[in-house]
């Protein structure tokens, strides 16, 4: 039997007894680490733990780019928007990704296959422009190569 999210959250919150508002970010980070994203259930539960309204918890979480509010897709695509990648045209790549995956950064496609995340720098500046799929880094990307990588993922699913 799988544990409900409420139950899974308890040990994490227990790490922060009597926590006040300044514990919000660390708690959000821990929950995202464990769950992969911040669900409605998690936001509400964290709010109750800290005596903060859900709108506030959500508002603070959206202030930082690191948090996501939908589960990751089966293929989690990260695109680097660091300086090196930017110079090499990552704006265009993001645009291509948004269109081919039909998701915006931070979102997950309806079929649950793809999610897209923009990262400030992947630390792979020598490979710019870079992207990754489920952690595997792809170097020196072009729109054509993006389409190819995405097509490969889709093909794998159909097989």
């Amino acid at each position, binding site marked *: 039997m799988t544990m409900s999210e409420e139950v899974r959250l308890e040990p994490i919150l227990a790490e922060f007894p009597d926590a006040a508002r300044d514990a919000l970010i660390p708690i959000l980070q821990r929950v995202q680490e464990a769950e992969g994203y911040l669900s*409605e259930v998690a*936001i*509400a539960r964290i*709010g109750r733990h800290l005596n903060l*309204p*859900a*709108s*506030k*918890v*959500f*508002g603070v979480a*959206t*202030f930082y780019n690191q948090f996501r*509010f939908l589960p990751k897709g089966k293929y989690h695509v990260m695109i680097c928007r660091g300086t090196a990648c930017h110079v090499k045209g990552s704006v265009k790549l993001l645009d291509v990704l948004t269109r081919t995956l039909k998701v915006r950064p931070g979102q997950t496609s309806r079929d649950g296959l793809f999610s897209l995340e923009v990262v400030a720098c992947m630390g792979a500046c020598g490979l710019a422009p870079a992207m990754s799929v489920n952690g595997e880094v792809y170097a020196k990307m072009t729109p054509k190569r993006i389409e190819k990588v995405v097509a490969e993922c889709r093909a794998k699913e159909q097989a």
Partner: protein
Amino acid sequence: MLNVEVNDRTIAAKPGETILEVSRRAGFQIPTLCHLEGLSPTGACRICVVEVENAAGLLPACSYPVQDGMKIKTHSAKAVEARRTIVQLLLSNHPDDCLYCSRSGNCDLQQLARDLNVDRRLYRGARSSYPLDVSGAALVRDPGKCILCGKCVRVCEEIQTVAAIDFLHRGSKAVIGTAFDRGLNTSSCVNCGQCVIACPTGALSERSNVQDVLSALADPTKTVVVQHAPAVSVTLAEEFGAKPGRDLDGEMVAALRLMGFARVFDTSFAADLTIMEEASELAHRVATGGTLPMLTSCSPGWIKFVETFYPEFIPNLSTCKSPQQMMGAVIKSFWAERNGLDPRNIVSVSIMPCTAKKFERSRAEMAHDFVPDVDYVLTTREAAQLIRTAGIDILGLQPESADTPFGERSGAGKIFGASGGVMEAAVRTANFLLTGSELSELDIQPLRGLHGAKELRARIGDLEVSAAVVSGLGNARALLDAVKAGQKQLHFIEVMTCPGGCINGGGQPFHTDPMALKARMRALYSIDRSESLRTSHANLSVKRLYDEFLGRPLGERSHHLLHTHYQQRDVLI
């Protein structure tokens, strides 16, 4: 005492007073956008900057305390230019929509742009792409017109303790929204409209029904009737430029008739009816060991607040419908029957000081056979709009009186419009019901005034009654918590969602005059004092309604038509 110079005029000031407060006292108006009376300043907008001799830069008047010998120039060239730049920046991503905006003519941003001679677009920024939120039964949010002053957020969180909305995202993407950025209808919002009153722009407004009412009035197959709430007649005049506190009851009735409403009824009549039911319910609860304290149920924002945040108190809520809904129910039953009308062909309109009434009328419990008891709710502001559309010079009309059988009202019904009024009306009647005689003094002073929490201990017959009156949901929350903790033993609690009661409802005219609330409240009590009929139980029309139709308070028909039930709400809080 400190001495401060404002625009070369010397004025005495108390330590801790802000530049804004002292300047106002000296007679100089400094514009503000993010400043909220009574709440701590955030200094977010900086429109209030003034020049102070020897200060390093311009200082924000709303938050900066005066110092002895300070020399302030509220409108120096430098200050005015800084304000002008701020407005120009605010307008850089603003939709120039004034022609189509409900706030036009009443918008702080528009006014500032005009006052500061902003005559063209100087900066061009990307427009916000956030869509309108039309999901709410009562309110419409237009993030495109939002200047992120944060007033709505603070009112909702600090005054109402609802916190349905907050700042989301950051930088150029910053926006005000609900948890998970969903529609207001799925949030914990209670539709009180206090954020609308606070908003300096058209980013927040009520969902308008003016066009719907105009269409109904033009439809010959419909009989369109209207009721108006106690707090409307004492504020409507402000929409037409009159001083706060002028009562327009009779003129309003005349105007509504001119527009083609078949009947004009007074919600204060239904307030009297509410008192008959509610006082009987309280007596019944006390006699039978029912759930106490009983909580009033006439303010629909408060009802949703209990359903959302304090479901454990649902059994404490009086089952009485609000006066609006009682009136709606008797119009489409008793009155329809008497006049041989099919309820389906009656369009029942109500004019309310309140945005939450729009939500209330849409509740499933407020209909019979899928015919809603009230079809459209107009706020005081919308009613004024309707009157303007009809081209009526309301201030010049001869007063007329409301229609039978729901036009007679007591002073007790009228003071429902102020916080404490329901309790005062209830005590007057409870005393009569329990002792058989009238109170020697009908004015109950401890229940009056604008403070958010009041208490009354009174002897009624053999009963020592403890009652409390709160307005503003933050005060209500504090009281419920005290009751929960066993710190307060009370029989009866009156709660009004809006601070001060309906005179300060979310549908009332936007006011900049801080004395407006007091004037509105005074007007209600002076109407009561001048009335010969001052108690609900002496209202003969109410008596007749019981004799001819309802039977008795809490009787079967009453139960069916005038009482309701509540449900816990499962929303993100």
